[in-house]
């Protein structure tokens, strides 16, 4: 959240982060209530990522951008997994609705934090070893 740090932008950033954490913990709680190893592991994953999103630790803050992408990937994987093999019942649809909202909020936060799609690509390019970075946007 480095690009917008004052005034209304700061308030919006906080609101988005709260939304992300609330939706993440909600879907974690729902998965936990379903029982079984797979759902429990999914719930633990969501809960851990929710904590990593707000943990006031230097290390957590340094890799927050990576946490956002991890949570986005985790949520998309959960949605796709359900589409492919998940059972269809009302609570499942509710959960997917929540997760789609979570994906939307994460995309908004990622774009705001990196100043747009090019900034996102530049940040992601840092994950690529330097010798393979000739094709990526320069940071």
């Amino acid at each position: 959240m480095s690009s917008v740090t004052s005034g209304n932008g700061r308030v919006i950033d906080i609101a988005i982060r709260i939304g992300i954490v609330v939706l993440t913990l909600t879907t974690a709680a729902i998965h936990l209530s379903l029982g079984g190893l797979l759902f429990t592991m999914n719930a633990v994953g969501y809960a851990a990522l929710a904590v990593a999103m707000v943990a006031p630790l230097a290390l957590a803050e340094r890799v927050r951008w990576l946490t956002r992408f991890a949570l986005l990937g985790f949520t998309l994987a959960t949605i796709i997994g359900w589409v492919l093999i998940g059972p269809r019942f009302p609570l499942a649809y509710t959960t997917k609705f929540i997760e789609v909202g979570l994906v939307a909020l994460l995309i908004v936060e990622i774009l705001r934090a990196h100043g747009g799609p090019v900034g996102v690509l530049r940040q992601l390019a840092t994950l690529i070893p330097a010798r393979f970075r000739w094709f990526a946007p320069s940071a």
Partner: protein
Amino acid sequence: MPRLFGAAALLVALVISGCSAGNPPASTAALTAPPGGVLVRISADRLEFDTSQLTVPAGKPILIAFENKESAPHNVAVYTDSTLAQPISIGEVFSGPDTKAQQLGPLAAGSYFFRCDLHPNMKGTLVAQ
């Protein structure tokens, strides 16, 4: 941030309590076999069915009385075999304690596969003979 944690924890507690607040158990005694058919009872508790084998008469209508004894949602889904390629009867997913009836059309003699669609480890064989 502490406020954020507090609000999130409250919401999670509300969701968990909402998910685990089950309906009162329905009376399984009220369920009766369909005309000329049979009533089969099965229950789920602690992420297990009470039986891994159901036996029904072939060629007769069947009513499955499924009692879910726990808050975790379950269903009874019957397929031709464990590949799940051909579903025969997919029961409603519901949280317990509650009981739901599920119709199963007359089956040809043979062996079928049933499971809980949410918890694939809960499974068994349905034999029509």
